[in-house]
């Protein structure tokens, strides 16, 4: 629906839209609110039914304990950061030229190739988990940062290519024609013109790839042992055999999402523009 139609719409329409957005906001935010609350609540208050929300139930103990005592969490954050940054950097370095080639170089069957690239996303991760594990353990690369980064790259690269390709398609081709007449070759045009004006979609793609890698649990679980445990693995270990330390677990989760939330806030405008531009053409 267009903005004009919204503007000229009746009260009913506007109320309906506000309600729908409200429901969506509650749906999205409820788990986060619950996570934040849980990280500040005593275990006892959490396990009773219904949970006890009296002032006495709240404490800073979970957070201080996690920050003060859990070396594992800090190591996990470092590991996750290394894996996510490496994977994101490679995804952008490979994805941007690939997307540009698919969008602009008049390759034969560029549309079909683009679709095939996206089609790799339709394979469920579990389907490749066992062969992947066997190959990686055979070549002795289990428990390596590079291994995880490369595995995440295979998931992130197609998405990065699609986001960027959509944006490149939306750039008026007269800019590239102008560059060609000005004496720039394909590579020079890409480096001097296309990349600098693509900062919003590059930021959007980078955030996307980073978050995917940061949050990934399943492959991290099967492809690592002790030395490159990432944040999601560390958090899962608060679930013990006899008891789950909900408060500490959520405090750890809270700390681990902070970097991502911070990134999202800093690059908010870029991300929204990037996704809007990237998704408008396909």
């Amino acid at each position, binding site marked *: 629906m267009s903005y004009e139609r919204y503007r000229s719409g009746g009260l009913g329409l506007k109320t309906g839209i506000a309600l729908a957005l409200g429901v969506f906001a509650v749906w999205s935010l409820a788990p986060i609110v619950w996570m934040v609350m849980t990280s500040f609540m005593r275990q006892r208050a959490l396990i009773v039914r219904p949970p006890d929300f009296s002032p006495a139930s709240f404490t800073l103990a979970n957070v201080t304990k996690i920050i003060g005592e859990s070396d594992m969490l800090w190591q996990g954050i470092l590991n996750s950061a290394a894996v996510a940054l490496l994977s994101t950097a490679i995804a952008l370095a490979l994805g941007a030229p690939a997307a540009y080639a698919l969008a602009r170089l008049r390759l034969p069957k560029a549309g079909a190739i683009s679709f095939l690239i996206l089609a790799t996303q339709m394979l469920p991760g579990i389907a490749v988990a066992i062969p992947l594990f066997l190959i990686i353990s055979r070549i002795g690369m289990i428990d390596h940062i590079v291994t995880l980064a490369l595995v995440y790259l295979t998931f992130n690269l197609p998405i990065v290519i699609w986001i960027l390709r959509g944006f490149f398609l939306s750039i*008026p081709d*007269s*800019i590239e*024609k*102008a*560059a*060609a*007449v*000005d*004496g*720039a070759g394909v590579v*020079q045009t890409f480096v*001097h*013109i296309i990349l*600098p*004006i693509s900062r919003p979609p590059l930021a959007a793609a980078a955030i996307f790839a980073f978050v995917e890698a940061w949050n990934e649990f399943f492959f991290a679980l099967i492809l690592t042992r002790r030395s490159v445990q990432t944040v999601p693995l560390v958090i899962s270990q608060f679930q013990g055999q006899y008891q789950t330390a909900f408060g500490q677990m959520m405090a750890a989760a809270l700390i681990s999402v902070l970097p991502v939330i911070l990134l999202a806030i800093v690059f908010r405008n870029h991300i929204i523009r990037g996704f809007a531009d990237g998704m408008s053409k396909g």
Partner: protein
Amino acid sequence: MPQIELRNVGKSFGTFIVCHDINLVIREGEFLTLLGTSGCGKTTTLNMLAGLEEISSGDLLLDGVRANHLAPTERDVAMVFQNYALYPHMTVARNIGFTLKMRGVSRDEITRRVTEVAQSLELGHLLDRLPSQLSGGQQQRVAIGRAIVRRPKIFLFDEPFSNLDATLRVRMRAEVKDLHRRLGVTSVFVTHDQEEALSISDRIAVMRGGVIEQVGTPEEIYLHPATSYVAGFIGNPQITLLSGRVQASSGQLSVVSGAAELPLPPDADVTPGQAIEFAVRPEQVQPDPKGHPATVTSVQPVGAATHVGVMTAFGPMVASLPRFARLNHGETITLGFEPAHMLLFDATTGRSVGRRPIPVRKERTGS
């Protein structure tokens, strides 16, 4: 020597033919305009000149050398685009200097030439601005600066003024004409605006459906259109083509149209019985007490003239009368015109059968 020569140049996308057998010779220092409605192939022709579109068939010669395969850079052309196509992340100075940078010109030399060009285009105070901080006219001037800074052999303009408002368009027209006079660089200009084409060009090539209908000076195109399409396309207000049949009585040729019989000029290239179309330019229709009765159907004063639509015994016409003609709807006046001023076309082929046949789709070489 012709600087640009197109020989039977064609362009097709799959089975869709955009340009067909374009033959055109552009002389050094000439200002030639490709004129036509959208989709007529004029921009495609320009892109083929620039090297931005491949040529499907035929030859492009630059300075007498076949240039079909040359990249845009190697053709030494500069181009100004309809939407300006400035690099949005670069300042005015960097936009203008980019082409020099790509050619490995030293930094000092770039600064010197950019400053020089910016001053000549009155952009000196805007060099540090981004394109988004400029008005449309300023942006277009930057685009022109980017084109001239390199001193190319050929300028190509792709509808450069169509995104500007009317006043600015007329001003930029004068600036480009002046620029051409100063630099003397061969220029090819694409537009759909016939008035713009008439006012700016040394010669005009009128295109339609991927074919050149006529090439000539603005005067030739206006006064002696080679086809009925050109006659209708050029001129404001537009002429109305009327149909009739040629008749000969006592050695005098005339055209019978509706309830009227109009004498034809003696040198008309027609035969009795031939179906023709004819028209008279509005400014050549004048009040004449001995003329044809005409009922006024519309009165449009435009300042210097009043465009009066009338209905006559042979059909509708438009007369352009001086200043503010005080006429009323439904009023009957008498209008006349010289037979020699009639534009005559064969009704089937649309080609001129007037007193001075103009070769159609043939390029006149040499000056």
